[in-house]
């Protein structure tokens, strides 16, 4: 626990890290408190107040169905956050375990597994997701395994290359010479060494999955109405943004600030624990 606090303090000491963590904290508070603090019912369609400019009654204005944009914006990140968190855990678990395992075993198992991973990666994630969505149908329950699977692919590469740095070290060879089982070597010797870089990568992964969920919601394949979502709101407001730009601007501000906050914080975190190269964008 103290190690976590030391890292946290070091991140806070960097201006960009402090700013990033502050933004994330605000978003977390909004996500947790929004059901209590929203001024209006997010699904309530008020036909007497369609496309109203921001006013005292509707601080962020109303959308084309007369719904309150402030309430919808405050609630709009929750579902995507839950989906991203679950999908990230899934991606890190299977990608991390497989990556460490093939690094340890090596040989033809490693070659075959990586060959298959290479092949799956060559279909862009969005089409992979769309394939599964067509077959399984839309919804959070379908998105979690699908996104967890596709984003876990890049975790395989990362975990493998991180673990490969250690498999030829003396302490691993010593463990093998002692006759330790593979599972013990992976969990006792390799995992503690790759844990930090995987954790940083996991945080980055979370933000990409979040963007993926938002993009899918924008395309109508993610979070489905009546649950409000930023991507869905932007897609919904696009047709009327000439007359009512507030319907798209607020969800864009919220979504972008969350992603930028995570990027700032993760950057600072990577520098604190001395990882100079973190993967900046989704992909192998």
């Amino acid at each position, binding site marked *: 626990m103290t190690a976590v606090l030391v890292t946290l303090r070091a991140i806070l000491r960097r201006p960009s890290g402090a700013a990033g963590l502050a933004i994330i904290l605000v978003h977390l508070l909004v996500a947790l408190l929004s059901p209590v603090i929203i001024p209006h019912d997010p699904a309530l369609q008020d036909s007497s107040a369609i496309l109203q400019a921001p006013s005292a009654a509707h601080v962020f204005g109303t959308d084309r169905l007369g719904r309150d944009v402030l309430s919808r914006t405050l609630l709009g990140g929750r579902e995507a956050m839950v989906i991203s968190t679950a999908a990230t855990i899934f991606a890190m678990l299977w990608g991390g375990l497989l990556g460490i395992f093939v690094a340890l075993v090596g040989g033809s198992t490693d070659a075959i597994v990586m060959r298959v991973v290479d092949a799956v990666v060559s279909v862009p994630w969005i*089409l992979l997701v769309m394939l599964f969505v067509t*077959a399984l149908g839309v919804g959070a329950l379908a998105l979690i395994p699908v996104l967890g699977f596709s984003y876990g692919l890049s975790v395989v590469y990362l975990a493998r290359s991180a673990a490969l740095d250690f498999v030829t070290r003396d302490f691993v060879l010593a463990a093998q010479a002692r006759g330790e089982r593979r599972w013990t070597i992976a969990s006792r010797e390799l995992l503690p060494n790759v844990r930090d870089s995987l954790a940083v990568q996991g945080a980055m992964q979370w933000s990409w999955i979040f963007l993926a969920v938002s993009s899918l919601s924008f395309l109508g394949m993610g979070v489905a109405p009546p649950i409000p979502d930023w991507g869905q709101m*932007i897609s919904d407001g696009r047709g009327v943004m000439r007359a009512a730009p507030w319907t*798209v601007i607020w969800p*864009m501000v919220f979504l972008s600030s969350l*992603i930028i906050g995570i990027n700032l914080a993760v950057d600072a975190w990577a520098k604190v624990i001395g990882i100079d190269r973190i993967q*900046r964008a989704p*992909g192998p």
Partner: protein
Amino acid sequence: MLALILRRAGSSLLTLVLVSMLVFVGLEAMPGDACTAHLGRDGKGAVLEACRERMGLNRPAAERFIEWGGRLLQGDLGTSMQRDKPIAEIVGWRLRNTIVLSAVAVLVGIPLAIFLGVIAGLRRDGSLDHLISSLSIIAMTIPEFISATILILIFAVSLGWTSGVVTIGYKAPVMELVSASILPAATLTLILAAHIMRMVRSSVIDVLDSDYVLMARLKGVPRRQIVWRHVVPNSLLPAISVIGLTIAWLLGGVVIVESVFNYPGLGRLAVDAVGDRDLPLVQAIALLFGLTYVVTNLLSDLVALFLNPRLRTFRA
């Protein structure tokens, strides 16, 4: 050299075979098939059986895979469920449109990225470098549908320079497509240029630190000549492999950008096909994108091989 090229091409071919197997087997393993997806709640009893009969889904999977693969080799992508037409016919024009859009983005984006990357690398840690680098991070982290919406808000809604949506049909002549693709291509260029620029910048910095640049400097070679003779050519080499990967990665962005702007390309077709629950069509498009990825990577590897003799002795 030839053996190396052949081996590289062979491994691309293997990847392609694996991709097609995965696209087929992955869907085979899931509950439901093209018919249940297409028919939805109506997919029961006789209707479902008739559809399966028509699509040939009631035969063993292995037999269907061999037949599907065989027809793929002949350029037959299968039949669309919704449109009841050969997929090759539906896909053809839209593939051309997507190629036009990506070509515009790439032709503008790569020179821009190299230019900005060299400038940022040469002025490392200067204020211009900080500006370019932070703008590139923003361009990379903001998702395509948001940067596209911002561009529409600025250039179509407030300035009124161009229309926010593409209204031309999918059979429009190439020149019309090019002028229609200004904003969509700009969205793609932003992200593409940001990725490649960062790579160019870091390799410029590496080259500037190298012994041969130090040597040239000590010899009194003018700075302009150092930059053009030593730094720029050498820093482009590592960038080429990234260009291949980035273009491939751009394909994912194409899907979203085309839907935002209503551009009549493959990406929008894919989104429409998901809406229609047209599994064979989505399958064919996924394969085409996979093919593009593999070919682009092969080409960029071969270009790197051609430009950099040191890679030729590498045994991959």
